[in-house]
């Protein structure tokens, strides 16, 4: 009788503990979590550790200085300390990708839930909308949206958010299609639960795992796309220290080749952020959704 101790039964049936155990086994997940947390803490601490005002910070006497003890990452064309700029660029990148993925997740999940649950004509229209959004290469679509709303950080968030929508529609819809036929949903319906209750209390919670994984991975692509728009000059305008805008500044003003540090460090920061989200997403997928791992 001792072999079936309650503790064993409890750990194997508690989903949170199972997820935690799975996640701990994933090396990439652990590295990703540490990196992501580290970057978030750094971003939050920036104003405390290194106060900076984008509008006034410039020092023409120290233009384009190579990395040294005084300026660890060198300075840019306005003589601003690159370390500070990259640090604040991290803040902006995290904020933009979070809001953009938030927009995509919210709208995409809602449309996916509606399409998958109600089927019929609504599903056809939403499917058509998804196909059209997917027919545009994402950069092109983002450029179009950003052009309409003007060059600003806000329009970047919006543009990148819109191109995330179809992914979430497809994902949610496919999950709803299989969930709505499951017994627990049928039971809820038999007990007289309304559509809203079934969707938000029964179906949505069961679809959360893949959505969380996708959202994490989308944070990576959103960061890349937002920086890409910045690089094309459609995002934040100088002197805002946005990472893509910094690269564009250096490239367009022709000192990217003579002062390579002005491109190396901002690009490295973008890569680090995306890498952190990708690693974390991989680890979460292993833990939350083991079957979908390719």
């Amino acid at each position, binding site marked *: 009788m001792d072999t079936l101790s309650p503790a064993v039964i409890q750990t194997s049936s508690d989903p949170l503990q199972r997820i935690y155990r799975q996640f701990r086994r994933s090396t990439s997940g652990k590295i990703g979590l540490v990196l992501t947390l580290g970057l978030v803490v750094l971003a939050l601490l920036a104003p405390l550790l290194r106060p900076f005002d984008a509008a006034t910070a410039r020092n023409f006497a120290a233009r384009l200085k190579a990395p040294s003890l005084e300026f660890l990452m060198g300075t840019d064309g306005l003589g601003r300390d690159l370390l500070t700029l990259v640090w604040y660029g991290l803040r902006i990148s995290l904020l933009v990708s979070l809001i953009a993925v938030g927009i995509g997740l919210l709208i995409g999940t809602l449309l996916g839930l509606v399409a998958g649950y109600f089927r019929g004509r609504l599903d056809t229209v939403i499917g058509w909308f998804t196909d*059209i959004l997917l027919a*545009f*290469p994402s950069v092109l679509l983002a450029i179009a949206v950003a052009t309409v709303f003007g060059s600003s950080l806000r329009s970047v968030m919006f543009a990148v958010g819109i191109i995330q929508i179809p992914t979430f529609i497809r994902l949610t819809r496919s999950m709803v299609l299989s969930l709505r036929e499951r017994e627990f949903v049928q039971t809820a319906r038999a007990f007289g639960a309304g559509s809203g209750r079934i969707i938000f209390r029964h179906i949505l919670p069961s679809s959360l795992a893949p959505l969380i994984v996708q959202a994490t991975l989308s944070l990576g692509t959103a960061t890349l796309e937002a920086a890409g728009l910045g690089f*094309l000059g459609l995002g934040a305008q100088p002197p805002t220290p946005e990472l893509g805008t910094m690269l564009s500044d250096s490239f367009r003003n022709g000192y990217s080749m003579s002062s390579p540090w002005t491109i190396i460090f901002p690009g490295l920061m*973008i890569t680090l952020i995306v890498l952190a989200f990708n690693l974390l997403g991989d680890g979460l997928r292993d833990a939350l959704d083991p079957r979908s791992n390719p």
Partner: protein
Amino acid sequence: MLQYIAKRLLGLVPVIFGITLLVFAFLHLIPGDPVTAMVGERSTPEQIEILRKQMGLDQPLPLQYLFFLIGLLRLDFGTSIVTNVPVIVEIGQRWPASFELSVAAMLFAVLVGIPAGILAAVKKDSWLDNVAMIGSLVGVSMPVYWLGLLLIYLFAVYLGWLPPSGRLGVSQGFEFQAITGFYILDAILQGNVLVLKDVLAHLVLPAIALGTIPLAIVARLTRSAMLEVLSQDYIRTARAKGVLEKWVIFKHALKNALLPVITIIGLQFGALLSGAILTETIFSWPGLGSWIYSAILARDYPVVQGGVVFISITFVLINLLVDLSYALFDPRIQYR
């Protein structure tokens, strides 16, 4: 099969219709008067009015959209305001450059990615596997334009091995005539080794930059597909029969592992052909991507409108072709 193709082509009609509608709507949502933006603030109201009439902008919106659609059906994509060249002519001039670059990038991705994936799968958990997988993860995490700039700095500026931009060294005074627009093909047709070398040298850096993301994706997918196939019974049987390991890998396993890889290659190719905007801008590559980008900056609306529609339709058609080609590689798939 034919019936299936017809059905899928028919299914594209509403999507393509939606694309044109969305592009049209976008361009008319842009704040500010496009005509004023085109001719500049200093032009007289009469000039603006003439241009407005010329472009049909004085008509009601639904009518404008109808004209736009009829034009598309006649392959009339409008005329560039900046160069005064018909958009379709410019597309014809520029797409070979984009196509050549995309093929080169894909070749790079496949030739490096598939062997790397196989090696990583066969030597699972070895340092080789780790290096390949970390490398591919970093590859998908890097901004393409950043990688492009680093490549230019290292190989063109610092080492001086390769040209930094463009498609052909203009200063070298080549006697070269573009016939097809595919410079590699043109150089071979004219038997011009010097030009061929120069064209290839110009192609290397942008192809590597553009091909890195597909390379990483192909390598990861080849690895996981190989791992799955290698764990199956028929592989064990082949090994038990005493088949040489290299035959097991290349003949028995690879053939079946390649199906998902081919799919992703097709889909990535569609994305490359259209998504090369950033790479083409960095390398001043005279393709469709850099053209549309400069048109956006110059507010050359007919070019943006026509170019985006053309690229999106190409993208949709390539994806359809990829879908249809499954049958060629996997006879188990039945079309209904």
